[in-house]
């Protein structure tokens, strides 16, 4: 790990937050893959925000005469098995997924990150007990944990956001704890302890600034995994409820007709894949720009 350690001296002379963000984005965009990733993510965010004003049709209007009609001048992406406009539904199909995951990701990274840093600092019995519980939760397949709650409480945003935020925060604990371990033994933390600072001060002033880079990269990756989970749930019928448009749901619906009407499935496939690839390229670029090693990540 080549994370740069912010010493008090560099902290004192650091440029404003906005300037640093601009510099970070420039660093990320300096590689072609990072530029492509940022472009894809921004494009998707823009479409998600503006799509209600962009779409030419109503997403739920059914038409008996337009069932699985191929693309033409009126319906650019064709129509689906109920005669609904695929262009309209593809533009709108990412909104709920993006909204849910964009809210849940910061919550997950925040609570998992803070708990992990705290455990890395205090160690001892609390650390041991919590990490055993973390291990136990990680041993259970994600879909089982999610489905149990979703089947019981429903598939609305108010269930999906807390569920995703809770379960996707658990692996973050491990990452943050390991990152904090690398810092805890350093002299400036010892100095802070010697000055008689409390745990809160040590965490917020010494540990958090040094673990933040790793957490940001982790957050970007969590976002892509969460999106994957969300659309998988929709695909399985446990996510967005019809007739609301969602990529996972559209792909599931179009699967049966894929051989005769590929357009109903291919456009949502392209949309979903491009967003997930975009996030991953962005996460890679972020990791490289911040000097965080994300190569040895486990596939969960």
């Amino acid at each position, binding site marked *: 790990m080549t994370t740069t350690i912010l010493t008090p001296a560099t902290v004192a002379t650091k440029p404003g937050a906005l300037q640093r963000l601009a510099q970070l984005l420039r660093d990320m965009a300096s590689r072609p893959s990072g530029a492509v990733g940022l472009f894809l993510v921004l494009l998707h965010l823009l479409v998600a925000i503006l799509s209600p004003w962009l779409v030419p049709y109503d997403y739920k209007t059914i038409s008996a005469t337009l069932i699985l009609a191929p693309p033409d001048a009126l319906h650019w992406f064709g129509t689906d098995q109920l005669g609904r406009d695929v262009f309209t539904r593809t533009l709108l199909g990412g909104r709920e997924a993006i909204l849910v995951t964009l809210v849940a990701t910061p919550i997950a990274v925040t609570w998992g990150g803070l708990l992990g840093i705290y455990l890395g600092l205090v160690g001892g019995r609390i650390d041991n007990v919590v990490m*055993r*519980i973390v*291990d*136990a*939760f*990680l*041993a*259970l*397949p*994600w*879909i*089982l944990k999610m*489905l*149990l*709650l979703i*089947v*019981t409480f429903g598939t609305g945003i108010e269930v999906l956001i807390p569920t995703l935020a809770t379960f996707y925060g658990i692996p973050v604990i491990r990452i943050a704890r390991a990152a904090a371990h690398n810092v805890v033994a350093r002299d400036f933390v010892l100095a802070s302890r010697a000055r008689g600072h409390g745990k809160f001060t040590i965490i917020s002033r010494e540990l958090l600034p040094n673990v933040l880079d790793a957490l940001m990269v982790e957050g970007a990756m969590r976002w*892509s995994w969460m999106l*994957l989970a969300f*659309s*998988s749930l929709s*695909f*399985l019928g446990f996510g967005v409820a019809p007739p609301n448009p969602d990529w*996972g749901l559209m*792909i*599931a619906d179009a*699967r049966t007709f*894929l*051989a005769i009407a*590929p357009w109903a*499935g291919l456009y949502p*496939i392209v949309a*979903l*894949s491009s967003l*997930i*690839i975009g996030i*991953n390229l962005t996460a890679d670029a972020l990791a490289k720009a911040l000097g965080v090693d994300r*190569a*040895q990540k*486990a*596939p*969960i």
Partner: protein
Amino acid sequence: MLRMVLQRLMLGVVTVALVSLIIFAGVELLPGDACTAVLQRDAHGQRLINCRKELGLDRPAYVRYAGWAAGAVRGEFGVSANSDTRISELVGDRVKNSLLLGICALAAGLPLAFLFGILAALKRDKALDLVVSGLAISAMTIPEFVSATMLILVFSGWLGWLPGIVLTSANAPVAKFFPEIILPVVVLSMVMTAHILRTVRSSMIEVLDSDYVRMATLKGVPYRSMILRHVLPNALLPAINVVALTVAWLLGGVVVIETVFNYPGLGRLMVSAISDRDLALVQAIALIVASVYVVVNLTADLLTLVANPRLRTAMARHA
């Protein structure tokens, strides 16, 4: 050494025990139980009380947990609420099918992952590496249901070479699953290969950049023997843990692929058990999958410990 192995084993046992507590408590805390699931709208008054008495749900939670855990240790999980079949019987076939799928995917994916991971690292930033790494990233990021759907469209819909979905029943003999199993195996091994390949590649690169490899090069050790004797043994150790995580994932988490291909594995049984609120079955599957995860990871830890003397002494000093 023995103490460390015992310590790891104890940790594994503790984790499985915790998992069983979490599963039991989770199912317990959620609203509804086996009786409300079976009776549905009639779940009130005397019928509910009778049903609970019959299934023993009126006993306190810790008594039921003890009974359930004692049964689980013997591999006996009771009777499925919805189909009146013994759970061990119901799960047995599915475990076998999931194993079959997992072993085929491993057999296809592992050699490819190691071969191309090593080659990509040796030809770093050359055309081969860029192609392999690019493919790996796509395989990792594109959702499984998307790649599965595309493969079905191409190989089953357009070319007609392979069956697109599995129609074989869950208790059929292994040979019956061919050739239907081929497409699910391909999708599964794509994802798996990508993850292992990336780990192999990056740990190879780390070793290739290390001081002792530079030293060996300067000393004039021939390229071939340097790669075989100095680089590979050190670079492949970290792969053990990723392979273990992948194996654990193969045996429990492939719900989406099983659903797309209608494959009768453990994952699909899990989803239908949750949808039907067959809580006893859910608990059984959860415990089995989690135990597999713990055992596989434990094995990987021990293997790493045996294979890497440095880790052994480092940990002994630490303890």
